[in-house]
């Protein structure tokens, strides 16, 4: 079975440590005893064929699976040495700390400003309106959207293009100053130009945030990520530097998948 640490970075302390994680949907086991470390301020890609468990594993990292009826989790996921599945953990601040961007852009039916301001407001991150405006501006700048929307912050977020909506969702995520951003197929509904902008943005964001992306596009994983984990049938098959995974993977299943021999 694959090593749980990428080969050349074992001296860096991981920000996420997953130990013997099993996830079940009712009687069906979706994740089989996976142990995996995620390095800080790094883009890690999860790849694998449909149904391999990569999105399930991603959602386990901020307990989004809790919202799915019949979903059960075993094992430990430690973020900064705290088990996020400990009964004392409150999932609301956890999900601010581990933000998520979804496949389909899902702005709230509110103005651009309010979309970004919503999180900081409910988490009490701004004492004054001026502070809130600063957070919104910084988040929109961080998502590369500020110049495009600064003159129409009061307009509905749903009026933006698909790519802009996704960057608005990224702004909404980073506005609450998360440590980790989970991205579940963030570009699958976008055209190549909007995709390129999101990918460039991810590279910028990785200077400040730890990013974990689930993608069906192996080219996208190859372009943006430093580490890649390959999942198959609920198992972690291989986890290594992205260059290694795409040029000389160790496991024949990884090789067969990335070279288009099965999927």
């Amino acid at each position, binding site marked *: 079975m694959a090593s749980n640490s990428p080969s050349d970075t074992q001296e860096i302390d991981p920000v996420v440590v997953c130990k013997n994680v099993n996830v079940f949907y009712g009687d069906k086991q979706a994740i089989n005893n996976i142990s995996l470390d995620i390095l800080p301020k790094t883009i890690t890609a999860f790849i694998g064929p449909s149904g391999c468990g990569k999105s399930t594993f991603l959602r386990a990292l901020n307990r989004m699976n809790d919202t799915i009826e019949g979903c059960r989790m075993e094992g430990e996921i430690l973020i900064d040495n705290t088990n996020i599945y400990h009964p004392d953990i409150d999932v609301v601040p956890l999900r601010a700390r581990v933000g998520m961007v979804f496949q389909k852009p899902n702005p709230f039916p509110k103005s651009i400003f309010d979309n970004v301001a919503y999180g900081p407001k409910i988490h009490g991150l701004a004492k004054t309106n001026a502070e809130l405006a600063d957070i919104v501006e910084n988040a929109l700048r961080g998502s590369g959207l500020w110049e495009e929307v600064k003159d129409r912050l009061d307009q509905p977020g749903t009026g933006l293009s698909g790519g802009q909506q996704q960057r608005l969702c990224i702004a909404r995520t980073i506005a609450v100053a998360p440590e980790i951003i989970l991205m579940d197929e963030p570009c699958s509904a976008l055209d190549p130009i909007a995709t390129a902008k999101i990918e460039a943005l991810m590279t910028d964001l990785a200077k400040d945030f730890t990013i974990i992306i689930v993608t069906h596009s*192996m*080219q996208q994983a*190859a372009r943006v990520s430093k580490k890649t984990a390959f999942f198959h049938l609920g198992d972690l098959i291989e986890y290594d530097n992205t260059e290694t995974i*795409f*040029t*000389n*993977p160790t496991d*024949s*299943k*990884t*090789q*067969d998948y*990335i*070279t*288009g*021999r*099965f*999927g």
Partner: protein
Amino acid sequence: MSNDHILGTYDEELTNLQILITKMGNECAEMIRQAIDCVISNDSNAAKQVVSRDKLINAINAEITVLSQNVIALRSPMANDLRLILTIFQNALNLERTGDLAKNIAKIIVKNDLVIDASARDKLEKLSDAVLQNLTDVITAFNGLDEAKAQTIFDADKIVDDLHDDFSSSLMLRIKNDDAHSETVMHLLFISRHLERIGDHAKNIAEATIYAVSGEINQLDVFDDVQFEALLNA
């Protein structure tokens, strides 16, 4: 698990490349064999045909360049597929050079009458047989992606080097002794050198075969990062 790609056309493109590189290798080996026959028989007409045969080698090389470029651009090959394509491209360049060297040998016969005695002939045949054996072995090794067979070429190339050293030493001695056929001796020195270079290209193809199979690159760890940086900036 099947070894075929989900996209059958991708398999066809890779197969075409493999067929072409094997064809190119066999053509080069035949061209070298004919060039040496021309030297031994001193047949300038046959040598002219060998010279013109180089055009086919160059054409196959061009075709491999275009097909490799298309597969890389259109299929985004990864892992063993990527290594295979890079290796085919690299091997084509090595084979193209062996074609040039065979042409150079043949050109000597087109322009000159050589007088080769039994001793020189014997040494030339031993050297050319060893070189041709290595080239055909390495073509077979690459065709079958046979890493173990590719490994044997390194020792076999040392034999080629020894035969070249022996042949060229004997020729140098003849020059020192004011041999009556000094022009022939000079040309044989060039021919020996060309054959030794063909042996080096066979060795390069062996290294590339090992890379295609294992991903290991020879010479990669000769210098550490600091030494390498210093050499680059020297």
